[in-house]
């Protein structure tokens, strides 16, 4: 029977050796929620990219703490929130990549956040450096029309910018 609702939590040290464990954890829940293997793989990659960012950047110059992975399953979607207590970053400093320019420069790295946006239906960053930084990623069980998805992304981006303006003015 498909697992249509639930809330699952994994807390693990921020180390690349735990990426496999995190992928297995998320993959099993996504499979039980009814996603096909193709979509399970997409979700696993997106979560892997978010966690890799934490491992490689969040705790630079700090004593590494944990990666927190929360998976919520509803009847129509799966939401994964990856959180850390590291330095944070400005998600707006990562504009959509121009892959032609990327390949022309033979550049390396910088694909992670771009991939997360490509693979998930909704992506939202909540950044509070040193306290809690999160990326919330949603995949719908029944793909939403792309125009609707773009509208959802636009709303999330505006909300995120509003929070940033609010934080700056505080």
């Amino acid at each position: 029977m498909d697992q249509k609702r639930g809330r699952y939590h994994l807390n693990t040290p921020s180390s690349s050796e735990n990426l496999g464990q995190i992928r297995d954890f998320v993959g099993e829940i996504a499979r039980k929620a009814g996603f096909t293997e193709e979509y399970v793989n997409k979700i696993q990659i997106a979560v892997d990219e978010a966690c890799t960012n934490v491992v490689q950047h969040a705790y630079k110059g700090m004593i590494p703490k944990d990666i927190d992975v929360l998976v919520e399953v509803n009847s129509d979607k799966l939401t994964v929130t990856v959180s850390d207590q590291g330095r944070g970053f400005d998600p707006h400093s990562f504009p959509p990549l121009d892959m032609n320019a990327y390949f022309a420069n033979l550049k390396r790295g910088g694909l992670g956040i771009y991939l997360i946006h490509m693979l998930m239906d909704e992506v939202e960053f909540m950044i509070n450096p040193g306290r809690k930084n999160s990326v919330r990623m949603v995949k719908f069980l029944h793909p939403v029309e792309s125009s609707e998805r773009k509208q959802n992304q636009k709303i999330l981006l505006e909300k995120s910018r509003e929070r940033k303006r609010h934080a700056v003015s505080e």
Partner: protein
Amino acid sequence: MAEFGVERKDVNGVSVLYIKGYLDAHTAPEFEQAIRQLLNEGRYKIVVNFKDLSYISSAGLGVFMGFIEEIRNNKGDIKLSNMTDKVFRIFDLLGFPSLYEIFQDEQEAIEKF
């Protein structure tokens, strides 16, 4: 647990790397080391056989980007073969087929050199 592995076979002037398992930020350094070893030996004609690779993230894709300039500057190339649909979809999503030749079969890739 063998989560990633790389084996090598030299076919005349071409080196074939067989990668298996999971290629992510944890295992990418092992793959990098295998390519670096080839370049240190002056072997710039490389085929990577993906038959047994189950998973790739951007850290794995980055390995290909990290060496391609040096390899092509030395009149070599990295050609890719035997990808599963699952792995190909990620390469394709990011447009990597515009930069790398991808073949169904290893022999076909070797003969392209």
